[in-house]
């Protein structure tokens, strides 16, 4: 009886359909397993990674060589030298590299420049797309889980556009901890905040996409009382309409004195100091590592609250 039943079951024409679907599932299971292994391994690598690069974007008409002086100044008084990787993005999104990241350097500088580095909103949109090409490549190559961003002039605009339009693809695996923009004209050359440019309007419209736990510093130069010679102070200050009450803290600073010109800012001694103090990780010292970190942290928060206007 049982045999008969089994026989009947085997002759069931539906069996081949079940077998077929089972086969399909199995065929997909094998590459699926491989994919899973690879993906989880990469995830684990990223998770454990201590790498926290500073990614720098120069302004309009500037190349990846723009920050050479700044890097030199930043590397002057540090026990561990930051290594530098420069990436040039061509107009069709091809990347060319120069320099390299040292194996034991946990805070390398990655400078991303564009072949087309012209001014204007439409170019900034394109540049943000190129920035994303480069970012995707380095995020896969170096598997960091957090980074700091630095933008001079239009570089800050490119970062802002990138944050609002591209960052969400990475945000569950990679965190932008801090963003520092120097002399960034959030309202282009407009002196009057009541005249908002299209770009500023767009930035404000999409500001809810900005990460809630990001710390932002906006540094402006004061050559005279109105501007750094090129960018009006009011245009830099317009950043508050984008970041304030959106990110964790937004701090605006004005640098005056010698070399406060727009194009001098990246090699201004005060800017270097500000970068070391706020953007970079505190220098690790075996004895007071924890203390200095905590001190730094509370410092940050205090600044964030006090200077937010």
């Amino acid at each position, binding site marked *: 009886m049982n045999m008969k039943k089994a026989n009947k079951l085997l002759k069931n024409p539906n069996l081949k359909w079940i077998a077929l679907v089972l086969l399909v599932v199995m065929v997909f299971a094998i590459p699926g397993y491989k994919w899973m292994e690879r993906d989880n391994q990469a995830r*684990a690598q990223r*998770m454990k990674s201590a790498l926290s690069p500073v990614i720098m974007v120069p302004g309009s008409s500037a190349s990846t060589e723009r920050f050479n002086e700044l890097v030199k100044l930043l590397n002057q008084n540090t026990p561990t030298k930051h290594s530098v990787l420069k990436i040039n993005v061509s107009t069709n999104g091809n990347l060319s590299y120069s320099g390299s990241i040292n194996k034991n350097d946990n805070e390398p500088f990655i400078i991303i420049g564009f072949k087309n580095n012209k001014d204007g909103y439409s170019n900034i949109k394109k540049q943000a797309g190129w920035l994303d090409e480069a970012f995707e490549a380095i995020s896969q190559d170096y598997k960091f889980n957090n980074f700091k961003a630095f933008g001079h002039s239009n570089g800050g605009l490119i970062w802002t556009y990138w944050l609002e339009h591209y960052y969400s693809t990475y945000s569950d695996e990679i965190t932008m901890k801090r963003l520092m923009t120097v002399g960034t004209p959030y309202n282009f050359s407009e002196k009057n905040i009541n005249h908002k440019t299209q770009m500023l309007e767009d930035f404000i419209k999409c500001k809810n996409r900005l990460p809630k736990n990001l710390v932002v510093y906006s540094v402006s130069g004061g050559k005279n009382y109105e501007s750094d010679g090129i960018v009006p102070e009011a245009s830099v200050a317009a950043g508050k309409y984008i970041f304030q009450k959106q990110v964790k803290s937004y701090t605006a600073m004005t640098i005056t004195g010698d070399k406060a010109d727009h194009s001098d800012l990246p090699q201004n001694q005060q800017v270097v100091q500000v970068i070391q103090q706020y953007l970079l990780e505190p220098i690790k010292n075996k004895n007071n590592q924890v203390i200095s970190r905590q001190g730094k942290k509370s410092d940050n928060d205090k600044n964030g609250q006090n200077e937010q206007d």
Partner: protein
Amino acid sequence: MPIAIIGSYFKLLRDAVFSPDSFIYNILNFDLTMSDKIWYAGSFICNGFVRVTFGLFGLYAAYFAARYTARLYHKDSTLAGMTAVMIIMFCAYASNVGNKLSNKSMFSSSVLQINALLLALLVGYAVGEIFHWLGKNHQPVEFEHVHRVRTRAWNALLPASVSIIAGMILGIIIYELQIKILSSSTFKELVIQIQNSNNIFEIIALAFVVMLLSWIGIGYPLASLSTAAALTSGAATVNLNYALKHGGSWNVPYKFLGSSLVYPYGAMGGASVVLALIVIILLSHQNKETENIAKANLLPAAFNSTWGFMIGLPIILNPVLFLPMVLIPVINIMIASLAIFLHIITPCVYPVLKGTPGILISFFGSNGNWSNLVFSICLFILDILMLIPISLLGQRIERKLKAYEYEKGQQTA
């Protein structure tokens, strides 16, 4: 209904092939190997068809529910159907007109989604009943000339108007109270509660509710339970980070997290009971008609696209299948948590791609733990065994029903 099966296949294609976080898309590395043109064309077609089948399913469901109810009582069934379509559209309009942010078009309303099937069925049924009580008898004829059509329209005026007034009131209620009836956000709390709970009893109780809702035709909670959003919850992230750090998920802090119990084991990606039922129907080889439905749905159901069968058989509102539909997932969850407790299987903490076949979810979700795979297969076989007595019962009822109908047919003839 064939519409649901068509929808199922396109949903399968969309969820497994043409979306960047999907199973087949990733393992075949379509990111690089598929040209953008094909990808855009494919996702355009799939999205479009999922939209017109599942996205507008309320229309079809209301139409047919009203039509068959009216026909049962020999009333003008076509007009009943059209009236029901009008009312459900008005409800869709009412629920979406206040929608400030996104699409105001009523075609994108959550009321019309397949996940809100219950509402459409109720509207259709109510309209059918109104035609039953107020409509004049109607005999379909081969040829209708103008005069007849005119009387037909006149006859339907009273029940249609009453239905529309009732529909109007329903729509006003929806609009005034801004009840987002039956949308994923309504059940957000419920789903979040499940995903963040680490208490087995709470999870079991809530899973019971979710399955109950999906049995009566409200699929939103089950659907949103299945999305990748499960991983964004705090506890799940803690689990994942722990597992990544320690290279395994044996000792994660939240072992009995709802998000890693209900989806991989309880519902097996939403397909456990449905797939088991399909296999039983195919193996028992009894009724040609149901067998064909089962055959057509085998592939989509294996990849968790179950609506075709839910409606085709139907499972929804089918009293025979109520108990297994609701209880089997709960039993699965209990067995799985016991197995986790006894260290037979590891908790599923790793992210799983969309459209991963249900049986493989716990295997992939545990970074390829073989005992998880064996356990899942055993669990599935157990589900089938549990379903056998029910399906025998179902067959017996079906036979009796047929005999009864035959008798009744004899009497009237």
